[in-house]
């Protein structure tokens, strides 16, 4: 076998002294299947061009052919690190479109699982961010914490990652006493555990050197780049959807939105750490104030799940038909369009629905934060070093499943 394959890329005029590297799609630090096309001058990045789409599954097209209830499971596969938050975001949007009332207990439950998902996602972010910069041990410590949360998820809805916990008009299952006990134990121990990570990271000169003044974005620039979530708040912009458009039970929660000042990698890191503590306090409030009552509304188009007493499951009718029929029957259901955003761990996750009066959405657009964050990478990485790019990708906290949809 004397096969010769040429790997030579055509070199454009003026680019002869550039060293071109394809980072990804299989690379340890690109968090999935991101490909970054880099033009290097030594180790300094002259041009950075992210390529996405390796995980594109056509959710927006697919959603046009499935009912509102069926589409719920697609949202699990967006940001698979915080599927709960996606479920809640989707359900909030559809409930607004269909004008479904959600009972109070289920709103609290949604807030609770949202914050648990935020903690799980931020812990994973901290783990991988630290690993990218080289601190290996933090990675495993964070996974230990995250494991506890995933165990609670598994007990709550039978699944660790792709939860599909919420339903239109409520949630799938009520919490049990043992779940609440486990959660309470977690909430009690979490702040001291977080402190432990901070001693490993935050007082470390190498960590500070690697993150301070790396990937700096000013406040106006960050807004222009459509950054959201902690990536935006690190630049000092006070924009948190939980405060601006309160959903679930965030109205009744007492929490602060941590803001950074400098807009560099370290500020974003601090923001997320503070956010974890806030999430923890929200979780505590949820546990303390959890109101009694039903977990799913009376007018919810909940179908197959037998959690509502009195509703019979029609086994002989194919599930899809009954779904469409029930949604079509709704009087409140009409033509129109609606956009609802929720604060998922990565940033602003929005669903834009165009409804045509059918049981399926006419058009569903998913505004995914990771997609916009990756587009900001181009601006943020320019002029920094190769090792900084890794830190910047880590600090933007992208999940490619959400980015490519």
């Amino acid at each position: 076998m004397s096969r010769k394959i040429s790997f030579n890329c055509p070199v454009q005029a003026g680019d002869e002294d550039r060293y071109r590297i394809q980072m990804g799609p299989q690379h340890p630090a690109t968090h999935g299947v991101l490909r970054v096309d880099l033009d290097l001058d030594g180790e300094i990045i002259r041009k950075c061009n992210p390529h996405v789409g390796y995980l594109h599954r056509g959710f927006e097209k697919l959603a046009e052919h499935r009912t509102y209830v069926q589409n719920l499971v697609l949202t699990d596969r967006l940001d698979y690190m915080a599927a709960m938050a996606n479920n809640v975001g989707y359900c909030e949007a559809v409930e607004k479109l269909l004008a479904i009332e959600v009972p109070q207990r289920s709103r609290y439950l949604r807030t609770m699982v949202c914050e648990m998902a935020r903690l799980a996602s931020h812990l994973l972010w901290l783990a991988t961010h630290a690993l990218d910069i080289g601190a290996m041990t933090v990675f495993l410590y964070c996974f230990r914490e995250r494991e506890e949360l995933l165990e609670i998820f598994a007990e709550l809805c039978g699944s660790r990652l792709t939860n599909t916990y919420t339903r239109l008009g409520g949630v799938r299952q009520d919490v049990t006493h043992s779940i609440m006990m486990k959660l309470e134990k977690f909430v009690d121990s979490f702040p001291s555990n977080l402190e432990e990570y901070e001693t490993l990271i935050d007082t470390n000169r190498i960590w500070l050197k690697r993150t301070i003044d790396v990937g700096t974005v000013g406040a106006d620039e960050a807004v222009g780049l459509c950054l959201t979530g902690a990536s935006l708040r690190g630049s000092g912009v006070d924009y948190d959807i939980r405060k601006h458009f309160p959903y679930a039970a965030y109205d009744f929660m007492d929490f602060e939105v941590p803001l950074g000042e400098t807009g560099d990698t370290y500020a974003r890191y601090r923001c997320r750490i503070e956010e974890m503590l806030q999430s923890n306090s929200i979780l505590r409030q949820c546990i303390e104030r959890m109101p009694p009552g039903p977990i799913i509304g009376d007018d919810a188009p909940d179908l197959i799940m037998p959690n509502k007493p009195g509703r019979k499951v029609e086994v002989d009718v194919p599930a899809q038909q009954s779904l469409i029929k029930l949604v079509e029957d709704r009087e409140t259901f009409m033509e129109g369009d609606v956009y609802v955003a929720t604060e998922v761990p990565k940033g602003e996750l929005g669903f834009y629905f165009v409804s045509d009066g059918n049981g399926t959405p006419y058009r569903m657009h998913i505004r995914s934060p990771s997609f916009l964050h990756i587009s900001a990478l181009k601006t943020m990485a320019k002029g920094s070093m190769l090792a900084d790019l890794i830190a910047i990708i880590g600090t933007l906290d992208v999940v490619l499943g959400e980015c490519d949809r």
Partner: protein
Amino acid sequence: MESTGIIPRLEVSYPDDVLHSYQYCGQDVVLTRKKHILDICSFIRDQCAMNHLMFLCAVDNSRRKEAIGKNEYERFEVVYQFYSMTTKHSIRIRAQVPDDDCSIESITSLWPGADCLERECFDLMGIHFSSHPDLRRILMPEDWKGHPLRKEYPLRGIGEWAGYETLKEKSLELRTFDYRSSQKGNE
């Protein structure tokens, strides 16, 4: 959310462009022509302090019940949602884009972050954004044919992607690869 007063201002400033406005689920929506969309967007950003572009997407109106048989609707529309972090107002602009002239001005000069979103619209819906710095496909492979989010595009696609076919051939070829015979060939 209460009415923001932006719609009347828009109607006064751009009387020829604003087609129709309404409120649905408490959200303000304005239908506009596409001609002065860049001006409208910069008006909204600078005069109304709406600094945050929440999303940008394209919708295919060809089978939409509310659009069929109405003059003001065109084949496509590009939807912009703006939000003001200071006044907490938001507004949605639906710019109508006809089938025969499927292009609209890019707003990347106002929001650099719109870059990716516009590329996505171009990729999935086939709308050209004039003066966009780098309009390429983003989610689909670069040599993909057709625009998947258009309504006439079937759900299961049209044929396999050329790149996948070559990959399949390659894998079949590698399956027949025999280590021993290749060693003999070398000797």
